[in-house]
């Protein structure tokens, strides 16, 4: 195997594999990235941790086809430290690979590509196009509410569901950590889309990879589902993610029709007020007390370890007075992803959850459980 490649392209390509290859593993080959120099000046870069697989193609001047696996981290560091424009890569018979540029040359041992787990796509697989802007927005609005607790594996991802209506397909994404729940619906129009028997759960790391894939250029992506995997395709890249095999909780149970005390707020004003309260938050206590009375919303955060913060926000007149305490971080997360000028905060009494949603569009909501203090 021998090829020349632009440093910039190579660096970028290897960097994208770093989040996928394993960091600490007893199986050394899983630390590695597979480099496959094919015909037609195509360099394939393949990474997998057996749950997520990435195949990306880059342009390179291939002199001699071949394949090898190399430590992704070391390869990345080598390329990063090289200063020239083009990099020359060559492998000898003993699986040693030289990476050189000008007077700089590195030599590292590789492991034969034969032992690398296969990351292949099924040719018969059906794919459907989806606008990458839509998908990006949906991920952005659900990413933050996923659970990070390893104990509850079914919450460690984003739940995706497709509903076929008369007007066409509607895609829904839901995430929850048990304390708050974020949900967004998007109409995909009349075009045919994935038909799923039941919803699927994309793991956190997989969602991060999809996010990265979407960030590269704004062309649309193709999406398909097969045997417990979700597959995404974009011009030169192919991403395959194992789904979480568990039941998602019955999230619809949490969504209430009761409007509670409906408070309309200016998004930016509310966000800044919340951030001011957030100054008092610590790991031990991060509550913000929100009281509504007349045409005022009063915010207070009193943390015995830090101090006290107070603020007021103007609201439309409320007939009922009420007060509730929420985790300020949860409120900030929900408000931050709203992209309208006005938002609606439905507050409910008696330790019932509050809901934050945009004032106009009805396709998004975030439900937040209050704190009992």
């Amino acid at each position, binding site marked *: 195997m021998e090829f020349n490649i632009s440093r910039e392209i190579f660096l970028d390509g290897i960097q994208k594999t770093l989040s996928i290859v394993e960091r600490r593993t007893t199986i050394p080959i899983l630390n590695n990235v597979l480099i496959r120099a094919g015909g037609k000046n195509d360099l394939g870069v393949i990474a997998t941790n057996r749950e997520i697989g990435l195949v990306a193609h880059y342009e390179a001047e291939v002199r001699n086809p071949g394949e090898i696996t190399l430590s992704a981290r070391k390869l990345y560091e080598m390329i990063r430290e090289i200063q020239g424009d083009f990099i020359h890569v060559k492998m000898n018979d003993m699986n040693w690979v030289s990476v050189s540029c000008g007077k700089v040359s590195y030599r590292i041992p590789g492991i034969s590509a034969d032992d690398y787990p296969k990351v292949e796509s099924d040719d018969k697989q059906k794919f459907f196009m989806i606008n990458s802007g839509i998908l990006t927005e949906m991920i952005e609005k659900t990413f933050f509410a996923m659970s990070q*607790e390893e*104990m509850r594996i079914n919450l460690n991802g984003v739940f995706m569901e497709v509903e076929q209506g008369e007007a066409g397909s509607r895609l829904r994404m839901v995430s*929850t950590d*048990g*304390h*708050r*729940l974020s949900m967004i619906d998007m109409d995909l129009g009349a075009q045919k889309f994935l038909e799923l028997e039941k919803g699927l759960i994309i793991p956190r790391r997989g969602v991060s990879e999809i996010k990265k894939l979407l960030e590269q250029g704004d062309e649309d992506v193709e999406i398909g589902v097969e045997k417990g995997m979700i597959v995404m395709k974009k011009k030169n890249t192919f991403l395959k993610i194992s789904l979480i095999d568990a039941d998602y*909780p019955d999230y619809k*149970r*949490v969504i209430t029709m009761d409007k509670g005390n409906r408070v309309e707020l200016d998004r930016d004003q509310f966000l800044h007020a919340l951030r001011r309260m957030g100054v008092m938050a610590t790991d*031990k*206590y991060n*509550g913000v007390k929100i009281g509504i009375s007349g045409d005022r919303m009063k915010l207070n955060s009193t943390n015995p370890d830090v101090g006290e913060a107070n603020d007021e926000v103007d609201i439309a007149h409320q007939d009922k007075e009420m007060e509730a*305490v929420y*985790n300020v971080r949860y409120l900030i997360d929900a408000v931050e992803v709203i992209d309208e000028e006005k938002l609606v905060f439905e507050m409910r009494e*008696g*330790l*019932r*959850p509050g809901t934050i949603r945009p004032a106009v569009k009805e396709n998004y909501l975030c*439900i937040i*459980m*209050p*704190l*009992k*203090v």
Partner: protein
Amino acid sequence: MSETVFSLYSWPRAILHVDGDAFFTTCEEAIHPELRGKPVITGGERGIVACASYAAKRLGIKRGVPLHEAKALCPGLIVLPSDYETYSLFSRRMFNVIRKFTPQVEEYSIDEAFADLTGMRRAHHASYETMARKIKDEIGRDLGISVTVGLSVTKVLAKIASKHRKPDGFTMIPGRKIPGYLRDLPVQAVWGIGPATANYLWKMGVRTALEFAKLPERVVLKRFTKPGQEIWRELRGESVYPISLEEKSVYASISKTKTFAPATNNPEYLFAQLLRNVESACLKARRYSLAPRKIVLFLKKNDFSFRGEEAKLVRPSAHPLEISGLLREIFDRICDGKEICRATGTVLLDLVPDRNTQYSLFESPMKAENIRRLYRAADILGGKFGKHTLHLGGSHLIEVLGKGRRGEPTARDQTRFLGETKRKHLGLPILHVKV
């Protein structure tokens, strides 16, 4: 005299360590004078030696040995059930004697206390040594129990002093004499140095406490983390560990274990015992307004091997009713219904202040709040009529089948004054003089 000098002053601080000698049996001897000097052990109800009197120790009876082995060693052994009620009364009185000399007393455990005497010389018109001896004598005279007292300039050294000569000993290590006491002391015998640190020190060629104390500061800073560095300072006579006055209220974990007899494989009885362990541990957690994030359950088999599992709670909770479902799940995994077990236990881990509760979207906060109120009532009932007056149905089998205590009840249990109940006793130790 040693060539090493750590401190030019004899008493930069005066820290006292008071350690009960074979405390449980000594208390028994104090209330049963006829037992003095005889081989006595406590722990009869557990089937193992919890504490052995010095007479028993001389016959080779050690802590933790099964009763039948102990009896084989000494046929005339006097086996008593543990009477913790009496021991804690003695303990409290012992601390109060020390408090007469200084307000700064740390109740380190049931039979151990640290006290800071620094600056009290003028008030008592006495040297530190005289004060320490007075404390020791007064405890011996008033309570009829012997204690060993160590006096030095730091907690670690005071502990070394009290260990130096036991029982009924008094050892004083003033600042200038530190090296003499450390020279022959194996490093692993220093308070706070466990097997791992000791092994590490051995690798560095450090065998004695003196060799450790003599390590240069830069080596200590480089090779040890904070705990190691602190012990090093303390050994050199620089007091870093404060005497903490507060009753212990910050717990990293709370554990409760119960041995019962006969050992059994009846799963419902085992579960009842385990649930009772959890009820007891949660009771203590609630007393300090704490709630665990994690819980460990374990069974101890007849061959003393353990089988246990740890689980994370959905949210911190010190209310057994809320977690009983989870407990049953864990129990069903660790209990096969065949193996005979002699003890059950639980550990509450990752304790956090139980102040604010973040309920889950998928639960009913009202139900949880009601459970909280229920336990508030249960704790009031417990205070009035005794612990576990109100308990879970799952642990009720203990009340039916018995607590699994073997042997005779304690002398205190057999005595009942007017107005006392099974669970409520006067706070007085009772002298059982045979006439």
